[in-house]
């Protein structure tokens, strides 16, 4: 299937990503995929399914089993003029590559005073809710968002998945691309005819009573919560941030100026997490508009729990609604 034909069709997020990657490879011969099991197997989630068959082993590379090596060699490929797309098999396995990401990928453009570009995309299936064992359900975005030189984005629906992965790859800056793995096979959705700018947030449900901002895996939870709250007469405005770094603060602040209230939700642990940054900015930029403090509903400050407890740990519908209740009680 030629990728351009998917516009207007309905796809799962997994398929949309696959089509997006295929399109990126068609558009630019310098794009290479690399990672553990991305070739013959098509990745443990099959996101790169069929790409090695169609583009060859030189462009879809089953690497040795070492994440620092994957990202470190991607840096070298980038210096040679390639545009590597690394797959990290699961969120919890990105840490062996942390040094290469933070000290090399993020800094090389700056180190070279702009003379070297590092257009690497690091794809990370992230987040919980799939009943997995340890290290397979984490949300490491805050680590990367705190690192100057990196961009961090998360897709939440198939159309964004299709477009954003192409935008990330085409971007001359390094991008950490978060894929909410538990949404890979959720409801199909239509692929839009054109992309939204990569770092622009989107109001995905207008409302007046309060703003609910989130991204990635928890966007669907936020929409459910807005549905439930509406049934109770509370109209929530839901924002899909899409980009964790940079954050489109303006869209959030605009909304809060209208609603006076903000709840932020994500799966990453609470303390020093992304919601803290959003709270800090919003209370600074919309101080006089806030009728309540910015509240946060997130993963707890514990390691990701054994899967029998993950539903309690995750910011689920009940917890978000409870947060909204607390927010409205001010």
């Amino acid at each position, binding site marked *: 299937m030629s990728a351009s034909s998917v516009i207007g069709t309905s796809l799962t997020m997994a398929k949309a990503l696959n089509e997006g990657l295929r399109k990126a490879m068609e558009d630019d011969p310098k794009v290479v995929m690399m990672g553990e099991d991305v070739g013959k197997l098509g990745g443990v989630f099959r996101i790169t399914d069929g790409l090695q068959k169609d583009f060859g082993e030189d462009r879809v590379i089953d690497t040795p089993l070492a994440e620092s090596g994957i990202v470190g060699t991607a840096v070298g490929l980038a210096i040679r003029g390639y545009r590597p797309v690394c797959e990290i098999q699961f969120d919890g396995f990105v840490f062996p590559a942390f040094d290469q990401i933070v000290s090399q990928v993020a800094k090389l453009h700056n180190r070279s005073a702009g003379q070297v570009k590092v257009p690497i995309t690091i794809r990370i299936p992230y987040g919980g809710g799939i009943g997995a064992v340890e290290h397979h359900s984490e949300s490491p975005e805050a680590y990367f968002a705190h690192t100057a030189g990196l961009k961090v984005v998360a897709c939440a629906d198939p159309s964004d998945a299709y477009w954003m992965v192409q935008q990330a790859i085409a971007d001359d800056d390094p991008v950490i691309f978060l894929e909410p793995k538990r949404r890979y096979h959720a409801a199909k959705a239509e692929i839009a005819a054109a992309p939204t700018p990569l770092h622009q947030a989107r109001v995905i449900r207008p409302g007046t009573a309060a703003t609910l901002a989130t991204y990635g895996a928890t966007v669907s939870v936020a929409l459910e919560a807005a549905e439930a709250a509406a049934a109770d007469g509370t109209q929530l405005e839901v924002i899909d941030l899409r980009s964790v770094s940079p954050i489109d603060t303006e869209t959030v602040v605009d909304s809060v100026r209208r609603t006076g209230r903000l709840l932020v939700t994500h799966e990453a642990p609470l303390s020093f997490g992304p919601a803290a940054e959003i709270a800090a900015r919003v209370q600074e930029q919309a101080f006089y508009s806030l009728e309540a403090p910015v509240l946060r509903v997130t993963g707890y*400050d514990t390691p990701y729990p054994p899967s029998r407890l993950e539903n309690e740990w995750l910011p689920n519908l009940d917890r978000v609604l409870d947060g909204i209740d607390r927010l409205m009680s001010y």
Partner: protein
Amino acid sequence: MSEHVVAVQPEPDMIQLLTPEGQRVDHPDYPLGLSDEDIAGLYRDLVLVRRIDTEAIALQRQGELGLWASLLGQEAAQIGAGRALRPHDMAFPTYREHGVAWCRGVDPLTLLGLFRGTNLGGWSPSEHNFNLYTIVIGAQTLHATGYAMGVVRDGAVGTGDPDRDTAVLAFFGDGASSQGDVNEAFVWAAAGNLPIVFLCQNNQWAISEPVERQSRVPLYQRSAGFGFPGMRVDGNDVLASYAVTRRALDDARNAQGPTLIEAFTYRMNPHTTNDDPRRYRLGSELETWKLRDPIERVRAYLSREAGYGSDYFAAIEDESKKLAEHVRAGCRALPDPTPQSLFDSVYVTMPAELRAQRDEFVEFVGSLEEASA
């Protein structure tokens, strides 16, 4: 003890003491020193851990486990190594060493909890001298190395006292051999002449990647460049696995330093219950390896050469059925952890802010129960 013949090794340089056909072979450097009764005991181990594995796969299919990483085909490497350990030795497993866990006295149900999602590793490492499963590839090899540093500092090496001298056994896979951590562990072990044995189960595959993706030379050769010996053993031969590991552990205890053992074996099942190997390997490969089955050859030896009869095998079959029953019933009965245990054991001393988070959580969960009551 039956007559021994020296057979041709199926792979050059691979140490074998029992052929796939069940014939005992001698190796000058690795005398076996086991009675037929001992060998019958190893046979029992092999059968029972395979049964646990079979049950676990079934339980996963029935939705009782979230996942299972099968050891099918690797029983001999694990039981051989596991039985070579002395009680006070310490072992550091990956996520697939169910056979070693068995040798270390870990209840299979505790293991299942991890794959069921009721715990993250329920046993006490110090009680069993068996560390928790480590999922991040290779990380445990450094833990094992550090533990061995502790052994040296405790003066528990090279004293000649068998109840004191302690060895450490670190497991890892062929895929893991590429990780920086594993190679750093080699650096440390060599530089410190540490009492550690690195046991690489080369089961030919790292999920979909054949071992050739990791190395173009046999993995046992890796250690020489770090300054310590390496050897390849037939990992489907429980006797060779036992003898070679015991020898290396003895060397470690006697302050002879580290050894790398490559146990040449095969992962006969998918990587985990989530995996579909039809996408990346030929069925014929599996067929070849079935001929080298780690259990069949011991059974052949015991019945043909050591005079064990159907009674013995039936008794073990019986025990195996009982174990299966224990595993099935026990797994279903594993209690879910309580919600508030989320906050337990994050710290030895729970910080006030986390306590507040827990208290809010408990209150919230209570309010939900109330609402739904």
